[in-house]
């Protein structure tokens, strides 16, 4: 595997934001997830639960409800009283519309996707007509007293059930009048006679209403008669979220104690027709409040303030009881928040509202493998750069030499020049900055060129000339449309934005991958399109160009690895061999995607990769492992005598010493830098959980 001296970095105080609400689109198999900081993430379930898109949040925006409309339209509403439709290509809000009802707590569209209903603070339910490209206010339902916390459409679209304080109401959509009013019990035992908040509500097609309220009960009501059918006390504190499966045979609720409870519509005796809602399963994967649950065809998905997204497959819905049935927990983003200036030993940390630039510590001491070296010079924070405006930072990068720094929000891209004089650091904004918005960019090494693909599906190559001057070198248009006068334009069919960029060290090649899984390669010397990598039906999660051979190594979200030779415009022999033999089954079953690919400058045949739980070095000279051989064999190799060792080694050398890993990179001088984020450090800064009495404590 090789020996490295390791910088074990634990000073990146990244705390993911809590999950507020989720919506699942069964046609696209995508989950939209909104966090407390107003950011929206989209997980692609068909691509191994990969987090394919992130729409950065905004300080003024807080999302309370999110919903998919039709095939691929995403709406959200929040406490600032605005309904937002998102542009899923440009990854920013498409338009916002004030509902003029105060803060919005609930948002839902009807089954036929013609109308959107929002529940407002002032007690009104507002109907919006969904038109192509926009929504339009249609009318109010009768305004009632008390804020509306939840609402649910009946499948027929004729009635809306609304949960408010102490009361559930049913509105007729046609007349706009309340046709039923159901009082919900307050909690009598508690010393505080608080109002009962109906946090979530479901309206089933047989006119049964399911409510989840702050007294810890899940209640089933007959909406026609206005009577209670059944009460299930499931928690001592609030039941915060509720979701109904599409066939309406199962319901999942989440409580503030962190439990997720499933209810199923089952016959009382086997063989009988009569069915009843019964509480069946209880899961506890969360430590904090579960603010959002989703019930898909096969999974229960829950997310809450402990920032984990948990995907629990239901065993009875799966045919194969194998790896598919494993629980998945997504904690960290599937992209890099850290960038590393290899030559200058600098790390740039990206927070939603600021950037931090650190210089790594040093150590002169030598030691045996496994020793902890004493730090002779402590790591120091060189720079803390707060973002301008209210938009959160979308992406950031530092150039390998450490002389340039850039970040982008959805409204602007900013480029800075850094200069170091002894211990002082000076930062200058490159004033003639560029008027576009980057989704992902990279700073090239040798020529100080800077590549930023904007949302309009174009890549800009920019060369910062002096400290305060920028020259736009070239524009590669991917959209197929616009071609500017002086620029050569290469049209392809893609319209999706670029998600990944990789530039070669010699500044000759640039690879760009889009959401539609296409990877284009451009020749930067001749400023033209070079070739396209054969289309593979999965989103790439990381890629890099080898500094010597100019081979592009691509890691896909489904754990596949490909090596593509750019000069020869084809997959390399090693890649073909790997595909023929197939990757090891344990490798394929890892559940976090590879987030970084890099190369060992001393050993050209090695590829260095990492995901959240492991570091892997692939040595291309060694034989590939087959399914029978042990994949994680580093420990056993250590204990095996020298002669046997030769027969057991294989190409995948995996180290799981550092977990959970946000970033790992090889520095130039035999050093490895790993950025860890222990979960306990995150937990210590989360909001207070519910107190639970455990026997014997």
């Amino acid at each position: 595997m090789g020996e490295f001296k390791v910088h074990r970095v634990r000073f990146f105080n990244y705390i993911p934001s809590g999950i507020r609400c989720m919506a699942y689109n069964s046609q696209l198999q995508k989950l939209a997830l909104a966090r407390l900081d107003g950011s929206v993430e989209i997980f692609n379930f068909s691509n191994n639960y990969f987090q394919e898109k992130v729409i950065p949040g905004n300080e003024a925006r807080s999302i309370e409800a999110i919903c998919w409309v039709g095939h691929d339209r995403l709406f959200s509403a929040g406490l600032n009283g605005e309904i937002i439709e998102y542009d899923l290509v440009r990854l920013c809000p498409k338009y916002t519309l004030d509902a003029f009802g105060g803060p919005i707590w609930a948002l839902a569209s009807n089954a036929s996707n013609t109308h959107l209903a929002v529940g407002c603070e002032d007690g009104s339910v507002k109907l919006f007509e969904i038109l192509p490209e926009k929504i339009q206010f249609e009318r109010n339902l009768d305004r009632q007293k008390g804020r509306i916390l939840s609402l649910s459409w009946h499948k027929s679209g004729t009635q809306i059930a609304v949960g408010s304080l102490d009361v559930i109401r049913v509105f007729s959509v046609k007349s706009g009048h309340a046709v039923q009013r159901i009082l919900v019990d307050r909690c009598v035992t508690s010393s505080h006679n608080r109002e009962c908040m109906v946090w979530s509500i479901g309206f089933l097609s047989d006119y049964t209403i399911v409510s989840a309220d702050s007294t810890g009960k899940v209640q089933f009501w007959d909406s026609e008669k206005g009577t209670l059918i059944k009460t299930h006390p499931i928690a001592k504190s609030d039941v915060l979220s509720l979701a109904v499966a599409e066939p309406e045979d199962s319901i999942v609720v989440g409580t503030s104690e962190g439990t997720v409870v499933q209810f199923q519509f089952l016959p009382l005796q086997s063989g009988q027709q009569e069915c009843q809602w019964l509480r069946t399963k209880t899961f506890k994967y969360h430590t904090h409040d579960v603010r959002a649950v989703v019930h898909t065809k096969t999974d229960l998905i829950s997310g809450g303030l402990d920032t984990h997204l948990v995907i629990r497959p239901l065993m009875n819905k799966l045919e194969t009881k194998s790896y598919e049935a494993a629980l998945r927990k997504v904690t960290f983003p599937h992209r890099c928040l850290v960038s590393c200036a290899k030559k200058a030993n600098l790390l740039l940390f990206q927070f939603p509202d600021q950037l931090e630039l650190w210089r790594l510590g040093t150590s002169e001491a030598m030691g045996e493998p496994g020793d902890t070296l004493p730090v002779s010079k402590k790591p120091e924070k060189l720079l803390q750069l707060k973002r301008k405006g209210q938009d959160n930072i979308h992406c950031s990068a530092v150039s390998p030499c450490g002389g340039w720094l850039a970040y982008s929000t959805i409204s602007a891209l900013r480029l800075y020049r850094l200069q170091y004089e002894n211990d002082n650091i000076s930062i200058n904004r490159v004033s003639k900055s560029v008027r576009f918005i980057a989704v992902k960019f990279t700073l090239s090494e040798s020529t100080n060129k800077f590549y930023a693909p904007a949302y309009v599906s174009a890549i800009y190559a920019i060369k910062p000339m002096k400290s305060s001057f920028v020259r736009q070198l070239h524009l590669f248009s991917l959209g197929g449309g616009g071609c500017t006068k002086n620029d050569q334009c290469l049209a392809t069919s893609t319209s999706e934005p670029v998600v990944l960029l990789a530039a070669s060290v010699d500044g000759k090649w640039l690879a760009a991958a889009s959401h539609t899984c296409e990877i284009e390669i451009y020749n930067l010397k001749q400023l033209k399109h070079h070739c396209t990598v054969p289309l593979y039906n999965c989103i790439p999660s990381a890629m890099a160009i080898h500094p010597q051979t100019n081979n592009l190594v691509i890691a896909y979200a489904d754990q596949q690895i490909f090596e593509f030779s750019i000069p020869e415009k084809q997959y390399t022999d090693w890649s073909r061999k790997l595909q023929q033999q197939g990757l090891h089954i344990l490798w394929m079953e890892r559940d976090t995607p590879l987030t970084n690919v890099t190369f060992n400058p001393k050993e050209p045949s090695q590829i260095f990769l990492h995901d959240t739980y492991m570091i892997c070095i692939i040595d291309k000279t060694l034989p590939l492992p087959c399914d029978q051989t042990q994949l994680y064999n580093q420990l056993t190799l250590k204990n095996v005598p020298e002669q046997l060792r030769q027969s057991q080694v294989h190409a995948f050398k995996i180290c799981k010493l550092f977990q959970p890993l946000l970033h790992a990179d090889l520095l130039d001088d035999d050093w490895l830098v790993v950025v860890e984020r222990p979960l306990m450090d995150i937990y210590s800064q989360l909001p207070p959980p519910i107190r639970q009495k455990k026997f014997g404590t």
Partner: protein
Amino acid sequence: VLKCNNMASKRTRRAVAAAEKESGGKEEKKEVMESGGAGGNEKEEEEEDDDDDAAPDEVPFQQAREEAVRSIKQALESVKREKLLLKEKRRQRQELFKEQKKRKLLPEALLEEVAAASQTSFIKSLGNIHKVHSCEDSEKPEEGNSSEGSEEEDEEEALDNRLKESYMAVRLKDQGQINLQQERAQDFIQDCLYGPGSNRTTANELFSLSNKKCFNKKAAVQFVDKSWGLEKKQKAEKFKKKWLQKQGVGTN
């Protein structure tokens, strides 16, 4: 006669009310006429109410009307007088304020000097707020002579005086209702989830439970993990030092 007076006063009160509502003189009369015409019925009712056996003295209609009109006039006059009194009172108060202000102020010569020196910078520094004020001032018709205009201005000055230094004048328009509503909504959800009676604990306690329950019992997380509760620990350290010092002083 007493009876009748009572009745008449009742009627006049009603009539005054009507007159105040609709200040048309003719309608007043009508009202009175109507009440007079319907006197028969009312009489009976009131007789029943009062439980008095004696029949009321007859009063000629003309006289009753005159009396009613007179009492209306009296009532109107009294209202006017009250208003005037109130005005007078206000004016006196204003003057008192003015005098108080003068008493508080520095000698005039000094004041003028200061005003002349700082006027320009003062205007600049006040910025928008002052502009708004001045706009309002200019919009008002110049009514230096009329007592009401000057009164209002004086009141404004008095208000300015009463405002403390830590207060700032802002336009509601800039602030917007949305922010306030949003804040209130956030407070609501915060109160629901974390307010009194929500039964919350700390992360330390939650994660220490497993340490406490496992076979080899361990200390709470905040003692196992050094990075937890740093602030509290530092505070405790400080307190300990102080306490030791105190003890040391005491023994010496």
